[in-house]
């Protein structure tokens, strides 16, 4: 597709009036490195559509819509922002300390300043580590929400095998080879690890990684996509010595089993 051809189609592309094949061709064209007015035409068409929508009867978006969005976002966003604010404040506080010692002078000024700088570096490093950890959680939560939003999502509820009160679920999108293990109250066990297993037919269980809940009991862990290439019949969780089974099969009791529906 040439730029002239794209510009000709840009209005229909923006308005969603192209067939799948035509749209793919247009998108492939937009990925090309140089253009002659293609994006300008697209922006113009977008402005026209915005005007079209602005002509519709005004409807007030009630607060419940935003509350629904917040509820589905969970706490991930605000926590991330809080950590960022903490990082900014800690770095600012460290800067004030440094400035104070710089201005007050004295025999140990250089030594104290070096200590303050080291403290600031330590605080910064700690904040970055915390921030990275929260970002990882946020990514995991987004991945889980994406699975839940998929039309092919299935939820596997694990059945506790000997009265364990915890509830664990697996969110699976098998056509997309995506899966997450989710629990709100799986207690961490000193010196032990939970290990996930994939079960297919009569074959021996296949190890699928360790599950390490947070101190609060919250657990959100991805399942290796390669293990979902062939849909499993069931998923199981065992308690193993720290580091997981060394034999490649569950060395201790299976405490949770979840059957995977393939319908």
């Amino acid at each position, binding site marked *: 597709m040439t730029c002239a051809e794209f510009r*000709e*189609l*840009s*209005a*229909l592309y*923006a*308005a*969603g*009036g*192209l*067939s799948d094949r*035509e749209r793919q061709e247009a998108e492939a064209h*937009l990925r090309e490195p140089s253009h002659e007015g293609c*994006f300008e035409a*697209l*922006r*113009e*068409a*977008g*402005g*026209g*559509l*915005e*005007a*079209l*929508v*602005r*002509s*519709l*009867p*005004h*409807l*007030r*978006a*009630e607060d*419940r*819509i*935003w509350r*629904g*969005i*917040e509820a*589905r*976002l969970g706490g*991930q*966003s*605000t926590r*991330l*922002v809080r950590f960022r604010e903490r990082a900014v404040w800690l770095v600012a506080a460290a800067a004030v300390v440094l400035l104070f010692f710089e201005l007050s002078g004295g025999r140990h000024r250089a030594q104290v300043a070096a200590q303050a700088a080291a403290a600031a570096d330590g605080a910064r490093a700690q904040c970055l580590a915390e921030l990275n950890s929260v*970002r990882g959680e*946020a990514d995991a939560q*987004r991945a889980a*929400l*994406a699975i839940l*939003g998929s039309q092919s999502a299935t939820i596997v509820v694990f059945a506790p095998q000997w009265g364990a009160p915890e509830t664990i679920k697996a969110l699976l999108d098998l056509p997309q080879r995506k899966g997450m293990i989710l629990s709100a109250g799986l207690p961490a066990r000193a010196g032990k690890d939970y290990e996930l297993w994939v079960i297919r037919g009569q074959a021996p269980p296949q190890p699928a990684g360790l599950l390490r809940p947070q101190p609060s009991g919250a657990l959100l862990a991805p399942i290796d996509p390669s293990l979902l290439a062939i849909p499993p019949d069931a998923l199981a969780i065992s308690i193993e010595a720290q580091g997981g089974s060394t034999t490649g099969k569950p060395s201790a009791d299976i405490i949770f089993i979840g059957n995977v529906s393939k319908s």
Partner: protein
Amino acid sequence: MLPLLLAVLARAAGGDEPLLRKIAGGDARALRVLYDRCASLTLALAVRILRSRAEAEEVVQEAFLEAWRSAGRYDPRRGTAISWILSIARSRALDRVRSRGAAARAIDALGREEPAPMPMPVESAEARQDRNRIRASLSALPADQRNVLELAYFEGLTQTEIAERTGTALGTVKTRCRLALQKLAQLMESGR
């Protein structure tokens, strides 16, 4: 001119890109800013397509959650954040219409749950004037241009389907759509 003023302020603050970057970084307050800027329009669009307030509200939620997840993929060269959100919501709303099936579509055609405009305590006189001005210009568009645009954007028909339904050539459909959007875009620009 309030909605347009907000757009101008956004432009003065460096456009939508910084806002979308914040959202991509996990800042829910930035998402709220985007929501305040676009939610009413998004809802109006979803109601127009779905003709169901309840479903439209779900679509608005889905659109903003999608924006939250994919803000990193927003490309400012392609259009404003409002255009981007509207395209997400339109796509979600049309997916729902298509999944309803033929019977429901027949009910839709009869005007299922025709949306009554809500009371408008938050719409300023200026915003109302803006809308009336755009409406007047829209009604001044030739009927065949407006029809092509509405069939594509609100009904989700492709250019081939529009050509078949209206008995016109494909090239004519393209031209009508382009001319209609050009005129409306000029209208938006003149209001800014």
